[in-house]
């Protein structure tokens, strides 16, 4: 009796497993993962390739696992059945199961070449194209934040990239210290930022919105907090952002009294050695450019929301919020740190 009851059990276990897998898959499909919600032509060319390849893989999966399950069910040894036939192979079958994967792979490789060719053929633009048609962006990886420059527009910012919808964006990607990897899943694949190398990438942005990414190459202690944000703006919004970034911040005499106090603290401490604030004594170029700090929604590698409380806490003890980061504690009192935060939030 026992052999007969064990057979359905075995299949039932497999059935339960498959049901769990299907559940997981279904739960996954209820919200598509970022890679399959592309916001650029580039990401969508990859998403299409993923769908096709996963389709082929699903067919192979079902066939092979199906045959495996069938084999298990059919060829369980039965008492008294004697030895099975001692076959050692079948040339026709072996040729078939070599050729069929080869053909499937040839198809996949052809598709790969097509997409690869598209992704590596960056559009060329003459100098003087309007920024809403084409914009050059220089990305420089630092431990653990992103420096973002628009060389043609004279803009330097950090961790947040604004790009116009409908435009081609060309990237030059570099690093000043260790290897980082520039990645925004909804915009496209990764490009490593490697010391001594300048790598290229490009996007044709199709969807407006806020998209998150982060450093994808392990780069040390705070690799996890080296994030970035992309704002894909409609052309008007982009132009407004651009105009604001190009304008100088408020002159000291236009600052409110408490902002002025904060500014004084910044200018009389080590802040100025590492940070740049246009029109002030702060001319350091080691840390992020703070000229328009308050125009950004996040700070410290896009890891924290940019508001007075967070900024005050950061300035008071930077090593507490992001242990290991390169900003030393300044020895400010809590009140002083809060005043600095007030000034920082005035840098729109």
């Amino acid at each position, binding site marked *: 009796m026992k052999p007969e009851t064990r057979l359905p059990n075995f299949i039932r276990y497999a059935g339960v*497993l498959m049901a*769990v*897998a299907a559940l*997981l898959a279904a739960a*996954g499909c209820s919200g598509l*993962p*970022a*890679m399959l919600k592309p916001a650029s032509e580039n*990401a969508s060319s*990859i998403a299409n*390739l993923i769908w096709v*390849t996963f389709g082929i893989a699903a067919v192979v*999966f079902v066939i*092979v696992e199906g*045959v*495996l399950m069938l084999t*298990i069910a059919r*060829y*369980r*040894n039965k008492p008294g059945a004697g*030895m*099975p036939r*001692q076959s*050692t*192979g079948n040339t026709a079958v*072996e040729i078939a*199961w070599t050729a069929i*994967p*080869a053909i499937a*792979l040839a198809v996949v*490789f052809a598709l*790969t070449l097509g997409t*690869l060719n598209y992704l*590596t053929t960056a559009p060329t633009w003459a100098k003087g194209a309007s920024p809403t048609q084409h914009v050059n962006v220089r990305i420089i990886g630092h431990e653990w934040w992103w420096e973002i420059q628009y060389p043609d527009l004279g803009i330097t910012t950090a961790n947040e990239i604004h790009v116009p919808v409908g435009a081609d964006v060309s990237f030059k990607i570099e690093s000043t*210290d*260790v*290897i980082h*990897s520039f990645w925004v*899943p909804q915009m*496209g*694949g990764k*490009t*490593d930022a*490697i*010391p*001594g*190398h300048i*790598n290229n990438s490009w996007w044709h942005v199709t969807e407006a919105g806020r998209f*998150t*990414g*982060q*450093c*994808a190459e*392990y780069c*040390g*202690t705070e*690799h*996890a907090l080296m994030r970035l944000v992309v704002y894909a703006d409609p052309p008007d919004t982009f132009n407004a952002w651009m105009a604001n970034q190009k304008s100088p911040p408020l002159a000291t005499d236009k600052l409110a009294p408490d902002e002025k106090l904060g500014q004084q603290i910044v200018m009389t401490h080590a802040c100025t050695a590492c940070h740049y604030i246009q029109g002030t004594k702060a001319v350091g170029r080691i840390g992020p450019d703070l000229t328009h700090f308050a125009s950004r929604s996040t700070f410290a590698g896009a890891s924290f929301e940019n508001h007075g409380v967070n900024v005050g806490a950061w300035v008071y003890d930077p090593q507490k919020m992001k*242990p*290991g980061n390169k900003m030393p504690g300044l020895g400010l009192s809590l009140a002083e740190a809060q005043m600095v935060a007030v000034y920082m939030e005035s840098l729109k």
Partner: protein
Amino acid sequence: MAATSKALPLLQRRAPSGIIRWLTTTDHKDIGIMYIITSILFFGVGGIEALIIRIQLARPENTVVTPEAYNQIFTMHGTTMVFLFGMPILIGIANYMVPLMIGARDMAFPRLNALSFWTLVLGGVIMYSSFLLGGAPDGGWFAYAPLTTKAYSPSHGMDFWALGIIVTGIGSIAGAINLVVTILNMRAPGMTLFKMPLFVWQMLVTAFLLLFAIPSLTVDSILLFLERNFSAPFFAANAGGDPLLWQHLFWFFGHPEVYILILPAFGIMSEVVPVFSQKPIFGYRAIVYSGILIGFLGFGVWAHHMFAVGMSPVADAIFSLSSMLIAIPTSIKIFSWIGTMWGGSLRFQTPLLYAIGMIAMFLIGGLSGITVAIVPIDLQVTDTYYVVAHFHYVLFGGTVFAAFAGIYYWFPKWTGKMLSETLGKWQFWIMLIGFNLTFMPMHLLGMDGMPRRVYTYGSGLGWDIWNELETIGSFIIAIAILIFIWNVVISMIKGKTAGNDPWDGFTLEWTTSSPPPRYDFAKIPTVHSLRPLWDQKHGADGNMPTETPKATARTEASLRPAITAADVAVAAAQIHMPAGSWAPLLLATGITILCYGMIYGVALAAAGIILSLASVIYWTWQKV
């Protein structure tokens, strides 16, 4: 009987007992057992590290460990699982089984074999001692420069890592030479290459992979050590070096390494599946040739780890193609195992369960492997949890499941006891469920943008639930491993006695006793076919009646003709087996002291060199 007991004192004089026996042994079986135990211990350590990783990631913005500790732990998890568990468990099984499967009495170089093992242990000690000596390695198991250079990793951690890698590398290269020479020169009469068991074939290919791949890693580690300690700028871009040099040398080792970890597993599969299907392997030569092909192609795919570094599109396309080509010989093997089961008479004992689990899980890893060979898809998923899922399906779903198939299959030969079938089946199902719960959601997380090697992630990204499930899954795996350990302990104490041939096996190892005597075979068998033992028992077509005790007696007698108590006595007294030796352990210790000297000063280094030279001289002059 009288003759046997007279022979015993001789045996005992040759093999000291207790701890000294193990420290000086040159017996391939002892060394195999030590390899297996050591690697399982390291599996425990690497597993605990994995559990800490999973606890930290169970919730967003968790603070169970500091970022620094997390980075050290994932570095050592990867390093341990690859170098201190994955390779040693397979090499250990090979150490025990290859001589037995080819009808030899030991490896070709027994003392070199011991040296391989001791360098593995001491290499592991060097790496793990860093936890007590100022900070563990924190640059990832792939140790990318310049993050691992002194400027960015100032503790001695990466020095210990590089030295540990070099020392274990000595053992791997020595072990590979030993396997190649043993397999090519010491096969029983009549065992042509194409009558060799498939596990031995895959180990032969693996040994060649080790020979050509490990030196690249050794060179890379030496360069890193020189750059860190003597300011030689191999990788520093601002001094004329190039960070990509590290990557090319590392992956020229690193990808063949994947095949070093999976080909022996394929070999185990190709032994277990036919025996439990009671049918010869389907397409023996196809499996041999596909293994060789994987070996060759394996050296032409390394840069698929580097699609994002900015190579030319042509280079990308070539490495993409070579990587996809690997899928063909690999799928031939999978199909051959299914072909072997098809039409067979399957005995669902634990070894076959693990083998079937391996096919089902490894297939998933293989399919996701094709997706990462596709450059555009790889640019998206590389360095995300998708890749973590992929290689765990290959290395856990593939190698670990196959290793368990091998352990359950050969444990009776190693110990003379059967592992409990009931506990084995519980372990299998629990591990299968835990494994899928842990690693399946990682595909999804990677595609949703979760990078690898992050100690934390933000809430509200939709990643929380999957990470929590994964953590639960990892503890389910841990339960399965505990059941395995319990199974080993309880079976050693009161397991069923195995006998010579508990599984109705095919190959020579089942013709000798369990565990085998020091000399393995009292008389070296002569081989006429791929399944020498099976053919003796059942006839080549399987039609020889097996049920009658008379037939069994006849076949056993014919394969091991006239092995009487007198023979055993003669064998014990006359077969020359190498004596134990302190030289391998002393040499490995000397090398290790030299390594600490590289960090802590010339005096210590000189002591290490003197001890090494002295043990080499002792080695050379010692009579064996």
